[in-house]
């Protein structure tokens, strides 16, 4: 019965409706939401009222750059939603780990970058991270025993014990 539920979800997540209608609509909604949320950090942010349909113009760029940024935001959310659909329609129980600021760097589960996006040289094992730019993904060794839960488990530390193994490393900025 568990497998029937997973198979049904896999069909849903690979359906034309989900891929070409549900995901683009949700990605656009989230892109507007994030652009709006990040706007107060941007030095050139204009005084255009929030929650408008023109949210992407609030960063003070020209309309051409604004459109390109909007497209990029939507594209990133589309990729993430598609990936989530793949993770959900499997027997795996996945956990995402977004390391918080101050965590010690661990080369086994993290990739270091500078704040400008280049590869960082690691001088010692006691360096702390300044920010986590991409979460790590872990997979529980035992397969899913229940119906598909649409929320993935989120953690801020590497899962303890041998129940998990690393699938994808986190990307972090070092101190």
């Amino acid at each position, binding site marked *: *019965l568990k*497998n*029937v539920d*997973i*198979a049904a979800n*896999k*069909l849903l*997540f690979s359906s034309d409706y*989900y891929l070409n209608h549900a995901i683009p609509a949700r990605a656009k909604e*989230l892109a507007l*939401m*994030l652009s*709006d*949320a*990040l706007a107060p*950090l*941007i*030095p050139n942010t204009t005084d255009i009222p929030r929650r408008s349909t023109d949210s992407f113009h609030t*960063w003070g*760029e020209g309309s051409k750059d604004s459109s*390109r*940024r909007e497209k*990029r*935001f939507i594209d*990133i*959310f589309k*990729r*993430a939603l598609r990936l*989530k*659909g*793949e993770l959900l329609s*499997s*027997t*795996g129980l996945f956990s*995402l780990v*977004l390391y*918080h600021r*101050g965590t010690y760097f661990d080369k086994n589960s993290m990739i270091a970058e500078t704040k*400008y*996006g280049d590869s960082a040289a690691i001088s010692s094992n006691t360096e702390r991270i*300044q*920010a986590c*730019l*991409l*979460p790590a*993904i872990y997979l529980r060794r*035992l*397969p899913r*025993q*229940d*119906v598909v*839960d*649409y*929320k*993935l488990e*989120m953690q*801020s530390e590497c899962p303890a014990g041998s129940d998990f193994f690393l*699938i*994808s490393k986190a990307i972090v*900025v070092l101190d």
Partner: protein
Amino acid sequence: MSIDDDLHSLISHDESVSLNRTKTSTADAGLYKRATNNLSDSFSEAKVKRLEEEVQDLKDRLAQLKKDREHLDSQMHNMNSSLETALRDCQRRCAEYADDVKCLKYTLSEKNPADRKLLYQQERQIEALRHSLSERQQNAAFSKLSADEHHVPKQDDIENAMYSIHHETKKILLSYDDNFTARTPDLDHEDDLRSLFGRTLGINPSSRVNSETLKLMLEKNGLQAIICSLFASGLCEWVFATDFESTIAKSSMLLNMYRQHISSIGKPLRSSKGGIQANQDLLQTAAMP
């Protein structure tokens, strides 16, 4: 006629002559015998010589025929090779022409709406069958799994998807010349931003973010790293940790009950039992005022 037959016939003829003569004269017997022997000897040598020449001639002809046969064999081999090459070429061209014929059929069908419709329907049926086959293969793959078997996406695919997200995130500010300076926001009035910072800093999203910590983080990282970090926080919070997908399927009470029963069953159960139980629950729910 063989050589022996020839000699025997000649000798027999001479003997009959000899018998007739014996009757008439016995005095001529000695002379006759010598003459017969001499004639027989000279005739035999010529005959043998001639026959030897004939044998040699036949041998020569046989050798020539052998040569001719070898030559013909060689020619046949070459012709077979040529025919095989030509056959393969024809088969290849037939495959190409099959595509051309398909295209031409489409072209012709444009003039005949009935044909066009038929071809369109056939193509749709083929596509539908392919899709159905793919779905059945997926279902079969899941139905064969035991309780402790994994069926997960490839690790490389997950890694590539994650790193492509990061790669795109880093390009967000490439066209934004701000000298990498972030403005310090007033998080008391920015709920979403406070929540994103909370996840990045490892504090409760509803808790107040320490202004000194915030300032230090903004100064240390610069705008690009801050944007990427908050984007990652947004992906975790709004994509991976939400159950948006549950709202995609049209709401069905019976389906929800099926899922509840599957969820509540901790041990293997036949699907028919789960179906009966789910329907009973549905009917009881419907009967309630």
